[in-house]
C-alpha cells in the first residue's frame, strides 16, 4: 500500500485504500498468470462487473466498490478476471487496486505516478525504520517485528489489531480457528512497552490514547476486545459454506470471547498508561478520570473468578495471571499517584488492596507440595503466564519460588529446548507451542532467571522458527517448525521485541556493573 509524507497527502489527492504492484522483468522473460477474483462480504455479496474504458475494471457491490487499473492484459470472465501474458526484460507493468466504501474513489494513474508512489513509500518506510533505537545484535529480527506491529496499526484511530487474519487453525484440520482481526486490550501493556522501548513514542501514545478514549462506551467496565473504532464486537458467526484452511472448520467471523470476564485486561490498560510517566509524558484530566474509574472497578472486582488470559470457553476460575494483573493495576495506580499524576486517588486504600492481592497470590497460587506457582488458585498445573510474575516485578526472577516454578514449567510444558506450550490441557490437545510464551521464557532468563548466555541462546533458537520474511504466527508446530494459528501475530512479535530489549538491558548491565549497582 503506498504511503506518503503528511505534507504530500495534504496537497495531493490520493486513494484511501490502494494496493499497488509494480512488476519489472529484469532478465529474460517471465510468464505471468494473475487472477482477480474479489469476494466481498465473505463471498456472499453479489458483484456487478464492468470494463470502463480507460478507467479500468469496476466491481460494484452493496456497501462499496473496487477499481482495478492495470496495463496487464486482463480478460473478463464470469465473476472474475484473469491475465496470462509474458513480460520481457526491461518491461515494467503496473497494477493498482482501489477500494472505496463511502464517497467517490480516487483513481491512481499508472506509469511514472506509480513509480513515484513506490519511491515515496520506500522513503517513508526507510525513515520510519531509521527511528528504531534498538542497536543490539538482533536488530534485523527486532526491526522486522516493529514493522509487523506498524502494519497491524490502524493509523486513523491508533488501534493495533492482534492479527490480520481469521481462522488460520491452531491445529490443522481442527476447530481451534478464531478471528483475530480485533484489538485485544490484553496486548496493551506489552505492546506499549515494545513501542516505547524501540523509540516509537508517537505510536505508543496513539495506542494509549485509543485504549483510554475509544473504550469509553463501556468504561469503567472493559471488554476483552474492541474493533479498531473502539466498538464492541458483533456476535460471532460461522461461515459454514467455507472449507477453511486445509479443511479446518469452522471459519469464524467475530469472537465470542468478547463477552468473557478477563480481569487481567484492567492491569494491562493501567500498566500501559503508567508508561507515560516512565517516559515523562503527561496524563490529561480525561485520561486520569478513566484510570481512576478502572482502578475503582479493580478494587471492587478482583476477588471474582474469570476466564483468564487463555480465554477457555469453560466456567470461570481464579486465575493467577488475572490476580497478578489486578496487583499490577493497583501497583501502577499507586506509582502514578505517588508521582503526582493521579490526584484524587485514595493512595492508602489502593495500597491495602494491592497488598491483599499479593497475599492472596502468595498463599493461594503457591502449591507447597508441588513447589511451584500454579495457573489457578489451589491448582496443581502450571501455565506459561507464571513467567510474567517476574516480568511484572511481583517476584524477582532469581527468587527461590520463581526458580522452582521455572523448573516445573520446563518439566511440564516445554516443547523442546526453546519452545513452550501455553499449558498442557485437555482443552486443546494437539495445538502448537505458543510463540509469545516461548519469548517469555527467553525474557525470564534475561531478567535474572538464568545467565545472559542462556537467555541469548534460547532467543537465537526461537528466531530460527520465523518464516522467510522474518514473521511469526501465534503458534509453532514443535515437530515441523511450521506456523500455526493466525498470521502474522502481533503478540508474538511483541514478545520478540520485549525479550530483545530485556536482553539488551541485561547485556548493558553486565557490561557496566556499576550501573547495575
Amino acid at each position, binding site marked *: 500500500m503506498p504511503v506518503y509524507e503528511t505534507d504530500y497527502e*495534504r*496537497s*495531493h*489527492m*490520493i486513494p484511501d485504500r490502494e494496493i499497488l504492484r509494480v512488476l519489472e522483468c529484469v532478465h529474460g522473460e517471465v510468464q505471468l498468470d494473475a487472477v482477480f477474483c474479489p469476494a466481498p462480504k465473505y463471498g456472499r455479496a453479489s458483484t*456487478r462487473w464492468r470494463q*470502463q*474504458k*480507460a*478507467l*479500468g475494471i*469496476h466491481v*460494484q457491490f*452493496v*456497501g*462499496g*466498490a473496487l*477499481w482495478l*487499473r492495470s496495463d496487464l492484459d486482463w480478460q473478463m470472465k464470469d465473476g472474475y478476471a484473469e491475465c496470462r501474458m509474458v513480460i520481457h526484460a526491461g518491461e515494467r507493468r503496473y497494477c493498482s487496486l482501489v477500494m*472505496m*466504501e*463511502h*464517497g*467517490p*474513489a*480516487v*483513481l*491512481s*494513474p499508472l506509469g511514472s*505516478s506509480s513509480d513515484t508512489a513506490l519511491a515515496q513509500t520506500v522513503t517513508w518506510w526507510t525513515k520510519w525504520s531509521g527511528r528504531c533505537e534498538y542497536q543490539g545484535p538482533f536488530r534485523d529480527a527486532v526491526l522486522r517485528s516493529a514493522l509487523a506491529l506498524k502494519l497491524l496499526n490502524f493509523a486513523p484511530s491508533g488501534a493495533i489489531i492482534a492479527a490480520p487474519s481469521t481462522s488460520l487453525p491452531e491445529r490443522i484440520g481442527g476447530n481451534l480457528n478464531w478471528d483475530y482481526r480485533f484489538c485485544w486490550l490484553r496486548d496493551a501493556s506489552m505492546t506499549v512497552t515494545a513501542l516505547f522501548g524501540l523509540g516509537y513514542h508517537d505510536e505508543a501514545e496513539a495506542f494509549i490514547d485509543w485504549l483510554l478514549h475509544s473504550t469509553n462506551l463501556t468504561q469503567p467496565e472493559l471488554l476483552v476486545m474492541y474493533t479498531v473504532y473502539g466498538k464492541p464486537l458483533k456476535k460471532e458467526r460461522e461461515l459454514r459454506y467455507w472449507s477453511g484452511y486445509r479443511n479446518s472448520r469452522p471459519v469464524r467471523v467475530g469472537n465470542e470471547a468478547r463477552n468473557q470476564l478477563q480481569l487481567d485486561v484492567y492491569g494491562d490498560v493501567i500498566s500501559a498508561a503508567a508508561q507515560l510517566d516512565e517516559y515523562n509524558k503527561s496524563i490529561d484530566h480525561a485520561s486520569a478520570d478513566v484510570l481512576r474509574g478502572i482502578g475503582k472497578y479493580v478494587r471492587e472486582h478482583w476477588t471474582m473468578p474469570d476466564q483468564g488470559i487463555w480465554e477457555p470457553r469453560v466456567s470461570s476460575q481464579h486465575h493467577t495471571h488475572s490476580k497478578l494483573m489486578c496487583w499490577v493495576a493497583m501497583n501502577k495506580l499507586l506509582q502514578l499517584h505517588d508521582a503526582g499524576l493521579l490526584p484524587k486517588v485514595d493512595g492508602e486504600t489502593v495500597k491495602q488492596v494491592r497488598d491483599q492481592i499479593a497475599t492472596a497470590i502468595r498463599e493461594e497460587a503457591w502449591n507447597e507440595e508441588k513447589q511451584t506457582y500454579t495457573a489457578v488458585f489451589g491448582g496443581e498445573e502450571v501455565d506459561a503466564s507464571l513467567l510474567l510474575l517476574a516480568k511484572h516485578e511481583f517476584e524477582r526472577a532469581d527468587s527461590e519460588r520463581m526458580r522452582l516454578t521455572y523448573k516445573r514449567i520446563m518439566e511440564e510444558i516445554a516443547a523442546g529446548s526453546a519452545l513452550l506450550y501455553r499449558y498442557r490441557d485437555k482443552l486443546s490437545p494437539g495445538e502448537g507451542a505458543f510463540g509469545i510464551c516461548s519469548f517469555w521464557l527467553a525474557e525470564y532468563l534475561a531478567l535474572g532467571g538464568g545467565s545472559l548466555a542462556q537467555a541469548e541462546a534460547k532467543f537465537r533458537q526461537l528466531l530460527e522458527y520465523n518464516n522467510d520474511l522474518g514473521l511469526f504466527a501465534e503458534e509453532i508446530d514443535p515437530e515441523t517448525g511450521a506456523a500455526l494459528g493466525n498470521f502474522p501475530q502481533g503478540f508474538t512479535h511483541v514478545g520478540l521485541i520485549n525479550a530483545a530489549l530485556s536482553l539488551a538491558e541485561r547485556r548493558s548491565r553486565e557490561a557496566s556493573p556499576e550501573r547495575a549497582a
Partner: protein
Amino acid sequence: MTLQIHWSNWLFWGFVASLALVSTESIAQGLGLTRLNLPLILGAALTPNRDRARALGIVLHIVLGWLFSLVYVVAMQFLGGPTWYRGAFIGLAQALFICLIGWQTLPGIHPRMASETHGPTSTRMLEPPGFMGLNYGISTPVAVFISHAIFGLVLGLFYR
C-alpha cells in the same frame, strides 16, 4: 403575468430546502445506497485536500442549493403558483437533467475528475459518476431523484 418574489420567504425556505437536500443526500450515503458525495465533489474542485474539500463542499453545496431555489420559485410562478406537486415535479425534472446530462459533462469541467475516455492523470483522479451516476452505486439515480423531489417539495409546500 407578473413575476412576484417574496424575498424574505425565499431566503428562509430556500435555505431550508437546501439543508433538506444536503441532508437527504447525506442519509442516502450513510445508508450505503450511494457513494455520491456532492460536497466532496464540489470541494475537490477547489482543493485536493479531501478533509478541507468536504468542509468547503458542504458550504458550497448549501449556498448553491440556496441560490438555485430561486429558479424553482420562478418556475413555480410560471407554472401557476407554488404547490407541493409542482415543486416536486421541478425537482424530478432537475434530477433527470443531472442524471442524463450533468453527470456526463462533469468530468469535462471538474478540474480534478478523471475522464472516462482518458483515465486518471496526476491531477485528475476523482472517480467520475458515469452514466446516470451509476459508478457511485446502482441506487444513485434513486437517491438523486428523491433528494431533488424533497428539495422542490419543501419549496412548493412552504414558499408563499
